[in-house]
């Protein structure tokens, strides 16, 4: 489903990833683990094709980094869900609008938007806050909204870039429980983290990278 073949990436003079190869299968949950600057976020960017390898190839579903055209990238991204440490919510729109925005931006009909948004807000247990602005929410609630937005298009994979990085342990566990539930429903999860204790509590496959190389799998 996701395949990295001998991928190398440099930004400027700095080599970020060196000869990385791995596969992620359908419905799998895996961590990319490593210290800050190891190249975790770069791997996620390569998957949603915000970045392209200098050498090697990345395959995501039916798309290949070597062949994809610029106008196809939005269609690839509609099959993925992405969440970040800083949530990336629109501060001037309420919870409902933040999630609905993802559908509107991809041309989904209004009648479908309401049904889908209500469903995902309930799934992540934030429906009761649907009219609140992000600034009225706790960090955990904001991340739940971000997850709702990521799953509203029914992606086959969620890419999570340090999703618990800004949260306390209790809230981090809540978020992990939600991600576990989503994974059990068949959506693959690839999560970048350096939180060893969280990995121990929710054990899954670990791809450990350091200084741009896979050091352990």
């Amino acid at each position, binding site marked *: 489903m996701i395949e990295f073949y001998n991928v190398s990436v440099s930004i400027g003079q700095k080599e970020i990833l060196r000869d990385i190869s791995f596969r992620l299968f359908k419905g799998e949950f895996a961590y990319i683990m490593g210290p800050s600057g190891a190249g975790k976020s770069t791997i996620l960017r390569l998957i949603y094709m915000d970045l392209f390898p200098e050498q090697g190839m990345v395959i995501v579903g039916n798309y290949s980094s070597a062949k994809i055209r610029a106008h196809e990238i939005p269609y690839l991204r509609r099959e993925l869900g992405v969440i970040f440490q800083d949530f*990336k919510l629109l501060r001037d729109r309420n919870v409902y609008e933040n999630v609905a925005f993802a559908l509107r*931006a*991809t041309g989904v009909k209004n009648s479908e938007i309401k049904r889908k948004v209500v469903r995902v807000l309930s799934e992540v247990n934030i429906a009761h806050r649907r009219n609140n602005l992000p600034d009225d929410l706790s960090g955990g609630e904001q991340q739940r909204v971000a997850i709702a937005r990521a799953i509203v298009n029914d992606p086959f994979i969620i890419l999570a870039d340090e999703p618990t990085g800004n949260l306390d342990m209790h809230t981090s566990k809540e978020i992990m429980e939600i991600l576990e539930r989503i994974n059990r429903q068949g959506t693959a999860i690839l999560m970048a983290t350096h939180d060893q204790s969280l990995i121990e509590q929710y054990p899954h496959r670990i791809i450990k990278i350091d200084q741009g190389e896979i050091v352990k799998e």
Partner: protein
Amino acid sequence: MNLGFSIKEGLKGLKRARMATAITITSVTVALMMIGLFIIVSVNIDHWVGEKRKNIEIEAFFEPVLNNSTAKKLVNKIRQMDGVERVDYISKEAAALRFKKEFGRDVVEVLGTNPLPPSCVIHLKSTHRNALAIANLSHKIKKLDGITDVVYAQGFLQLIDRYVTIIYLIIGGLGLLLLIVAIILIHNSIRLIIYARREIIEIMELVGAKKSFIRRPFLVEGIFYGIMGGILANAFIFALIQIVRRWLYSGVIEAPEIYGLILGLGVFIGFVSSQISLNKHLNKLI
């Protein structure tokens, strides 16, 4: 794709940056108003010059010995010439009557004979009412056998041609400059808006919005600036014309097409400048 969503997003953007919106609309209004006024001035100058040119005619004098039938043959020759609209023949007798009418004395009584030559007044087609065409035509007429002299307001024509060209060039140059200024103003506003909204752009990208969809709200904003600038400029131009007509000069020509032109120009510069800005700045982000 939902156009309504793009329009709504575009208008939301305007509301969010009220001050920038107000400044841009004001600047575009001023630029369009100046362009509109330049066009009004040009139209009025053109009308005035046209009126003056209408009165320009060539007068050709025949040899005094020429009898009426030979003179009329010459008149017919002149009628066939390119650029001639109408030729009025003035016989010796008619010339004497004209003399009496103008000076109150009978030329035959004063001199004992009528020395006035037969002549003709040549009216020109509108395409030939310029210095060069008239000079060419006069030259041709002068070469005809039986013509002694050809007279027209050569100095006046040259003056009009020279200065009108200069005025049009100045007006056209200033108009173009203002057009560029208006485009730069909207371009800058859109650039700032793109920068202020890089977060929403990033989110749109992440959720899989197409490039064209991301661009559309910004285009809506640019066009809105142009439309608002056009409407306000039109209102000012209309008011100014009414004031000038009432207090300064009632003969001002309004040229109603100007209002459509200014509005169209507003839409055009709004579209073009936001396109330039999007191509230059949005492509760095997406």
